[in-house]
């Protein structure tokens, strides 16, 4: 869409547009407001007051506790230790899974792969298996290859489990690319990888961002595999968060819980925010007629 289109509908349309955007943003942010407000309250205030009220005074102790004091087992070091582990898992797993899925999606969409349709469908079906049902075989197999309890094993599993949906997303996206561009590159003598790296990847910033958002979210927030496959010592943030927040018979400190959740959510949020400029770019605009 060209900037000229922005003028469409005039000032009135613009005001309506922003009104809609803002109202929706407020609605989306309401739970966030409750969380932030709660995180700055003392427990006494939380018990007494309304969830919508602003804190009487800003109490930062919950944030401090969540970051470095809350207990998550024998140790009371807050979420802090988990961040390193989580980054160690998320960075390679997101890069690996997005990258692999992009290649596979492109190959399935635009290249002669025998039975690509069926392959894609069979692959996709995998996305519907509840992960819990995969748990035992995965633990068992990882154990066989001595990968159990290692970050490497966990990364591998995240890469594999992300494939069905990601591959589908990339395949759909690449199928819509004007195919003459790929043809021209083939005429130019470029092989699969060159076309992929020099032509296709630069054309896909928006979908790469989508995939990265999906994977960052999924892997950062993954609890089950991080818990079960991480083994001892490789405890990601979510497991710590869960230990802080979830309690069956211990006391609940909602302010700490909220602060911890907000803290744990920051890295993905940063990814969403930073990915913005890549989103704005359209693809292929105008390079192809017809």
């Amino acid at each position, binding site marked *: 869409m060209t900037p000229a289109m922005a003028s469409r509908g005039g000032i009135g349309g613009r005001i309506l547009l922003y009104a809609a955007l803002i109202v929706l943003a407020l609605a989306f942010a309401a739970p966030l407001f409750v969380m932030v407000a709660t995180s700055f309250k003392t427990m006494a205030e939380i018990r007494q007051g309304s969830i919508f009220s602003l804190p009487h005074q800003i109490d930062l102790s919950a944030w401090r506790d969540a970051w470095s004091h809350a207990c998550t087992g024998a140790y009371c070091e807050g979420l802090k230790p988990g961040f390193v582990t989580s980054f160690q898992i998320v960075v390679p797993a997101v890069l690996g899974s997005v990258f692999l899925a992009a290649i596979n999606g492109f190959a399935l969409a635009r290249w002669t792969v025998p039975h690509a349709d069926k392959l894609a469908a069979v692959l996709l079906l995998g996305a519907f298996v509840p992960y819990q049902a995969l748990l035992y075989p995965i633990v068992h197999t990882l154990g066989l290859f001595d990968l159990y309890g290692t970050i490497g094993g966990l990364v591998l599993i995240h890469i594999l489990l992300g494939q069905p949906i990601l591959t589908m997303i990339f395949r759909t996206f690449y199928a819509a690319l004007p195919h003459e561009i790929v*043809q021209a590159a083939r005429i130019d003598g470029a092989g699969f990888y060159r076309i992929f790296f020099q*032509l296709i990847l630069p054309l896909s910033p928006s979908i790469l961002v989508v995939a990265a958002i999906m994977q960052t979210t999924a892997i950062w927030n993954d609890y089950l595999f991080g818990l079960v496959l991480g083994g001892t010592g490789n405890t990601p943030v979510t497991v710590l968060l869960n230990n802080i927040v979830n309690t069956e018979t211990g006391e609940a400190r909602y302010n700490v819980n909220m602060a911890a959740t907000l803290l744990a959510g920051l890295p993905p949020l940063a990814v969403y925010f930073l990915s913005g400029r890549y989103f704005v770019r359209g693809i292929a605009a105008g390079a192809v*007629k017809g």
Partner: protein
Amino acid sequence: MMNPVNRATTGGISIRNLSKAYGATMVLKDTSLEIEPGEFTVLLGPSGCGKSTLLSAIAGLETVDGGSIHMRGEDVTHVDAARRRIGMVFQSYALYPNMTVRGNLSFGLKVAKVSRNEIAWRVDRVAELLQITALLDRKPAALSGGQRQRVAIGRALVREADICLFDEPLSNLDAKLRTEMRMELKKIHRTLGTTMVYVTHDQVEALTLATRVAVLRGGVVEQYADPRTLYEKPETMFVAGFVGSPAMNFVRGRFVAEGQGALHTADGIRLSLAGYPFRKPPVAGDEIILGLRPEATEFAPASAFAAANPVEIALIEPMGADTLVWLKLGEQMISVRVPSDRAPSPGDRLAITFDAARASVFAADTGLRC
């Protein structure tokens, strides 16, 4: 670019019994075409007749359903496009949107591991030739239609392949540039001896550039001949009607054996065919069609002729140097091209004359030349 490397004998293409369907639509039907090394073959035909499809098949971009393609003497039917070593210009440009013009031009060379200097040199050379030097650092989205097309041509030329395919490469260029480019292509073809297969709608392009023109109709090659033959001795009515602009006029009637043969139209007009070199004269009474080129037809004041074929001016189309005069010959319309300064006035009554030796006669039933 202009390295006088003689590749003249390397780039032959032989297309044998090719067929291709999209679902139920048969696009190519048992198409065969022998393109000699160094030849400049133009594919001509109405929109949708399968020109682009045939070109794609040659490039290896479309799988074919049957038949084979040989290139440089080798069977390449199942060889990947990337390994056919050709250049190609796409009808839809297909520029790489993420790369600048320079990137578009040098991509293929980089792939081929041409040295940096050589790339820079070739790109500059081609850019100059195509008058796109000033655009080298723009991306395709910031180019006009014609500019994009020139970049697309440049991308094919810069590779210096011994086979080059063009799908209507000049259609979005202005006349001046088109003429220049046409001459450049001809020069390139002469210098390099590259085999060129060229799809166009433009008669002038087809006739000036081609060593041979293949006229396609519904995926079938109707005639494959040098431009002069094609123009003067079209084998079928379709070719006759399709080649030449303004188009050949057709006058329908029955063959009568008077004199050396004549044509009688339904509304009583008689045209003598004296001097026409029949291959096999039709039987008297057969329905035939007389093809007259607008420029090979003239008119004279009506009085000088028999009252049997008076004509009336229906429409006058000025076309710059010439003017096209549309005449009513009985119920049939005929166009005559005259220099603009000799154009008659609307309403004048005239009669036409023509040289039967330069006309064409077709059998009405088969459409084949008699």
